[in-house]
């Protein structure tokens, strides 16, 4: 049986993405919490650095994956009607995909390569 059919891939992705998101947030909290007051100049400069914007892009990418696996688990539990669940999942998937493109555009417009 494939890794996908057993739900193993979703299980693993949820844990990997969760670990990355948690680590990113800890580092972000430390970075923003120390140093000078956060104003536009510092904020913009911070995110224009390739390391930061790539790490942030990865962060949002993992958030969207984590959100997808999580909300799918919730819907599988509570929405019993297959057709309805399928429709909701399609709408949510398109929404998440759109948000992924959106956030990529934002970060690409800031990064200074």
């Amino acid at each position, binding site marked *: 049986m494939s890794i996908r059919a057993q739900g193993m891939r979703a299980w693993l992705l949820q844990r990997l993405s969760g670990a990355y998101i948690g680590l990113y947030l800890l580092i972000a909290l430390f970075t923003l919490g120390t140093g000078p007051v956060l104003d*536009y*100049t510092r904020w913009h400069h911070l995110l224009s650095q390739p390391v930061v914007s790539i790490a942030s892009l990865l962060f949002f990418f993992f*958030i*969207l994956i984590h*959100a997808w696996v999580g909300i799918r688990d919730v819907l599988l539990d509570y929405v019993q009607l297959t057709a309805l669940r399928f429709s909701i999942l399609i709408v949510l998937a398109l929404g*998440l995909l759109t948000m992924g493109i959106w956030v990529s555009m*934002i970060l690409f417009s*800031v990064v200074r390569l």
Partner: protein
Amino acid sequence: MDKTGPLMLTKTRRPKYLNVLKIYLPVTGVASILHRISGVLLFLSIPFLIYALSLSLRSPESFAQVTSFFDNMFMRAFSLILLYSLAHHFFAGIRFLLLDLDVGIDLKTARASALGVILAGLLVFVLAVVGVLL
């Protein structure tokens, strides 16, 4: 396969008792359902966060616009709920990761860590409320 008929029948006629208020949820269950509820709230907040990110990077004026969102009391209350959701989801998530690695898997430890996770989330919430009020 001819058994599916009668089986389905008994399944649909099975009495249901779903008074949520009368279900006793152990502390591990509380940590778990809060992880789920906070996850859904965080899910719903994603587009708003991306919008805020977009504004905050556009210009100094729109950056100020984002910070001024929090002058509104409703927005502050809303952010506090989101912050609590994030804190609980974070702590409970670490607990689940450890449980997956068989760390703290015995019932006594699992109950204690569930309580610890709930309290840690509440502590962050209380500190944030105090921070907002001061």
